[in-house]
């Protein structure tokens, strides 16, 4: 009969039997060591647990920890049966094992059979809620074997213990200079300030605090501001105002107060960027480009007078004439940029005065007390040689000298008739006005036609409108309307009013008249009126002498 399996030979069955017997004997005499994957931990704990000092004390009793598969208990239940302290922690919120450990997952963190001296806790407990220790591992993430951190890196003795020696050991390697100085400054109490995340841990950023670091502050050692701080409250109590740290740096000796940032930045003390507009003295015009020390002599930053004379008194060309400050007239751009309104003064400028140069009136820089009388300036220009007094404005407008507004009618010689249109100098010869004679003859020479006849009272016969017509209202020995003359003087007085002729009229033809008078024996024909008084005819009737 062929065997169903080739191995079921006598030798094979014997070998199998011997193997089973050997294993059974080994298990019986070796204390089940044959089944052990490795020696148990033999390090004694702080105190006996479950009546033993170490697991190795039970190395022959696998069933102490390993419950059979058909039983109700798990291995973790047997762990907790001995490790009562852990069992208690599982039930207390503050317990080390609370919340993440249970009888079902002891082996997630703990191991055995790794040798007598091997640790019973895994090096990488990635799920342990380390934040419950008040030190989060965001900056020290455990990433498993070969990863960045293992539990024992920080807890070399045992997990429940921690020494900042661990911090120093690593951080001195990472940044020796900083770490050494940091330890000198703040001491070894790392956990007093650091919690691994929100308090000065990997996510700590000074820029997010109420005092972001800028400029030179970024280069400072922490202790420069946080001197002597040993815990978070002390760190947070660091001075935040400039003067609290920089009082000794104040080259202004406190004169500018304590708000350094008004002018300075954290970049450097130099190059202060004061916004002078925010001061009581905004810089305008040339002040904006002036050297700071020009006004702030010897770095005197406060108490600088804000009136012009505070700085410019030595530059006053007016020799202190004005009681008002310079800016009453001058703009801060430059001295020549004036905004003085003469119109607001006691002597508003009108006419040609508006175009006149200042020095034309204000000689030698004299402003205060400048006389306002015309003659004070125009005396040399007085063509009247003072005859009209000193009040030029009585006649002249300030536009030009020729702009005269003299009312002749208010004078002793009101202008009427043709006088109104006569040039002033027609009467006022040589520009002489005062004392001009008012008699007609002073200007009008007596004409030869009535020289010596009427005298010099022209107005007796003439009006100022025109010489003609003239009217004689005086006595006239001969009827003025003789022969219908109608007052036409030249009919009888063709060449002189001192003489007359009767031949001006066509009725008195000289030849005919001489013939008639010769017939009458009258030879003197030169004095007609002697005989014909009143214009009458022969005998003197004159009315009808022909």
């Amino acid at each position, binding site marked *: 009969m*062929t*065997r*169903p*399996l*080739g*191995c079921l*030979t006598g*030798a*094979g*069955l*014997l*070998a*199998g*039997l*011997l*193997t*089973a017997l050997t*294993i059974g004997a*080994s298990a019986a005499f070796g204390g089940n*060591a*044959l*089944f*052990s*994957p*490795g020696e148990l931990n033999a390090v004694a704990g702080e105190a006996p647990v479950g009546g033993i000092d170490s697991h190795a004390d039970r190395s022959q009793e*696998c069933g102490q920890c*390993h*419950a*059979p*598969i058909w039983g109700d208990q*798990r*291995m*973790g239940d047997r762990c907790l049966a001995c490790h009562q302290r852990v069992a208690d922690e599982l039930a207390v919120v503050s317990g080390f094992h609370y919340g993440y450990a249970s009888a079902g997952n002891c*082996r997630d963190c703990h191991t055995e059979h790794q040798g007598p001296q091997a640790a019973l806790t895994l090096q990488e407990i990635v799920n342990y809620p380390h934040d419950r220790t008040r030190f989060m591992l965001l900056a020290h993430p455990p990433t*498993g*074997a070969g990863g960045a951190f293992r539990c024992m890196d920080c807890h070399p003795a045992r997990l429940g213990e921690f020494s900042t020696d661990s911090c120093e050991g690593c951080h001195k390697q990472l940044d020796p200079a900083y770490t050494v100085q940091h330890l000198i400054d703040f001491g070894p109490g790392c956990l007093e300030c650091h919690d691994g995340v929100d308090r000065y841990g990997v996510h700590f950023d000074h820029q997010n605090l109420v005092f972001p670091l800028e400029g030179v502050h970024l280069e400072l050692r922490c202790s420069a501001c946080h001197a002597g701080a040993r815990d978070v409250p002390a760190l947070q109590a660091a001075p935040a105002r400039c003067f609290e740290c920089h009082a000794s740096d104040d080259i202004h000796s406190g004169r500018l107060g304590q708000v350094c940032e008004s002018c300075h930045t954290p970049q450097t003390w130099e190059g202060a960027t004061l916004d002078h507009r925010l001061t009581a003295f905004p810089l305008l015009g040339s002040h904006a480009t002036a050297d700071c020390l020009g006004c702030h002599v010897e770095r005197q930053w406060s108490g600088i007078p804000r009136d012009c004379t505070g700085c410019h008194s030595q530059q006053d060309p007016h020799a202190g004439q004005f009681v008002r400050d310079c800016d009453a007239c001058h703009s801060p751009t430059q001295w020549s940029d004036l905004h003085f309104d003469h119109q607001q003064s006691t002597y508003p400028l009108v006419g040609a005065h508006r175009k006149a140069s200042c020095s034309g009136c204000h000689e030698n820089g004299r402003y205060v007390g400048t006389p306002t009388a015309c003659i004070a300036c125009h005396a040399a220009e007085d063509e009247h040689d003072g005859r009209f007094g000193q009040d030029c404005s009585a006649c002249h407008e300030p536009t030009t000298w020729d702009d005269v507004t003299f009312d002749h009618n208010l004078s002793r010689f009101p202008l009427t008739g043709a006088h109104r249109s006569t040039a002033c100098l027609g009467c006022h010869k040589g520009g002489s006005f005062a004392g001009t004679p008012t008699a007609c003859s002073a200007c009008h020479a007596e004409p030869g036609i009535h020289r010596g006849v009427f005298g010099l009272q022209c107005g007796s016969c003439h009006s100022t409108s025109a010489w003609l017509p003239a009217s004689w209202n005086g006595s006239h020995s001969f009827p003025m309307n003789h022969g219908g003359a109608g007052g036409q003087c030249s009919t009888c007085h063709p060449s002189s009013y001192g003489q007359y002729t009767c031949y001006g009229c066509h009725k008195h033809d000289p030849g005919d008249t001489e013939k008639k008078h010769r017939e009458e024996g009258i030879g003197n024909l030169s004095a007609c009126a002697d005989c014909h008084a009143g214009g009458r005819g022969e005998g003197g009737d004159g009315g009808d002498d022909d």
Partner: protein
Amino acid sequence: MQGSRELWLAGLAVALITALYAGATALAGIPAASGFLGHSLGVVGFLLMLATETLYSLRKRAIRRPWGRMRDWLRFHIFTGIVGPYLVLLHSAWEFRGLAGVVTLLTMLIVVSGFTGRYIYTAVPRTADGIVLEAEALRAEVAALNAELESGDLNDADRQRLAHRSAAERRRRRLERQIGSLASARRMLSLWHSVHIPLGMALFVAAIIHAAGALYYATLLR
């Protein structure tokens, strides 16, 4: 190449398993023997080794109801005989203590023994179904081949027949060589069996006890 295809496939499987194992190791460290992956390696490896022995042995004895060619079953036997022990080796997590270490050691010995036996096995002439040929049968086949080779029917211009002729010549040379060493080869195979089979039995007994212990202590499920 055709004769060692199972070795290439086994090598490929070992390479693939090695790559996966290396990846798992890189991610979470060496898979512990007591972990899910470690246990899986051990269980699958053990089943493959069990199949290595039982299936081929059963097929060898199933002459009346043959299922598959013996040569293919031998290839399967070799493939699982390499891959299975390799999985068991990985299951050990490179720790060789206690009974588990003994099992691993026996496994490796079985593999070495198996390789040795494979070459002893091929020294014994067999039919395509693996039936051991006796010397008389070999000589008869050689005679037939000689007659074929010497016949004038061979057409040298016919490539197909020429190839057949070449194969027939190679077969004749191997048979002649096997005839010369047939007696010693059969002695060697018998000796090998006397070592390999007890070793295998010891391994299976130890492995079963190891598995039973693991189940008893129930560290996987608990």
